[in-house]
């Protein structure tokens, strides 16, 4: 099916995915800017997508790729709503530093 596929074992893709997910977690924990924290979440979503595609390729199951497609669509919706919330928060607080956004009430 994909004759080039023989060269790289699927493990490497999985390890890359694990590394990207860990970097996303680190970013989520250490970044202090609301937008960058949100970007780290996107990075984690992408890492999971990569492992989905790798498994789909290994097991010749097209459902894995469809799952990635749905994850992409939901992530796009999530990004739109999340960024709108960030704009609304910025309008009230006038800051993006997560340390200063520590109360839910206005």
């Amino acid at each position, binding site marked *: 099916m*994909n004759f080039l596929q023989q060269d790289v074992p699927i493990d490497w893709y999985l390890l890359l995915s694990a590394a990207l997910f860990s970097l996303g977690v680190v970013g989520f924990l250490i970044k202090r800017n609301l937008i960058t924290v949100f970007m780290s979440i996107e990075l984690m979503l992408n890492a999971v997508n990569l492992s989905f595609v790798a498994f789909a390729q290994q097991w*010749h199951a097209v459902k894995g790729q469809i799952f990635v497609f749905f994850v992409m669509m939901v992530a796009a919706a999530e990004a739109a*709503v999340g960024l709108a919330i960030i704009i609304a928060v910025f309008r009230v607080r006038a800051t993006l530093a997560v340390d200063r956004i520590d109360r839910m009430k206005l």
Partner: protein
Amino acid sequence: MHLVLFAIFAALCLAGAINLLVQSHPINSALSLIVVMTSLAVLYLLLGAEFLAIAQIIVYAGAVMVLFTFVVMLLNAGREERTYGSHAAKIVGFPAVAVFLAVIATVLLRAQGLGAAHLGEGLNAAKSLGAANDSSNLVVLSQVLFHELLLPFEVTSVLILIAILGAVALARHEGAERTAEK
């Protein structure tokens, strides 16, 4: 060939992700995230998922990241303030990340081994199926997506519509229409 491409784009991916962490300006982080997503699209191509590669570029590297950079510029986000956590966090942090990475990698690799053992028959069936209709990945994908999973697909489109309305409602300036009325 495949190996070389994988090495190049995996390295780009990791470099972009690390750059996302070390940059202090959000716009630099956004640009390095675009690098990560584009190289992930190439990796999808290597894995034989052409449709997802294009969707990754259009949806993620295009739409979502344009939204991100737009918000960064709109809010005029400057350099982030560094806060220095406790010493314990620094000492525990790196080993904790290493352990976390090890756990995920172990689970994924074990799942991969399990799959090969468990799904042996299904794998062969799928292989013969793939050999039978020897069509591109996109044909199979669209058949499953628009026959079996038509309802979830439509539900997702409604979800996106709701998300658009929600985003507009959230981001709209409250005082705007009041001043317009006056």
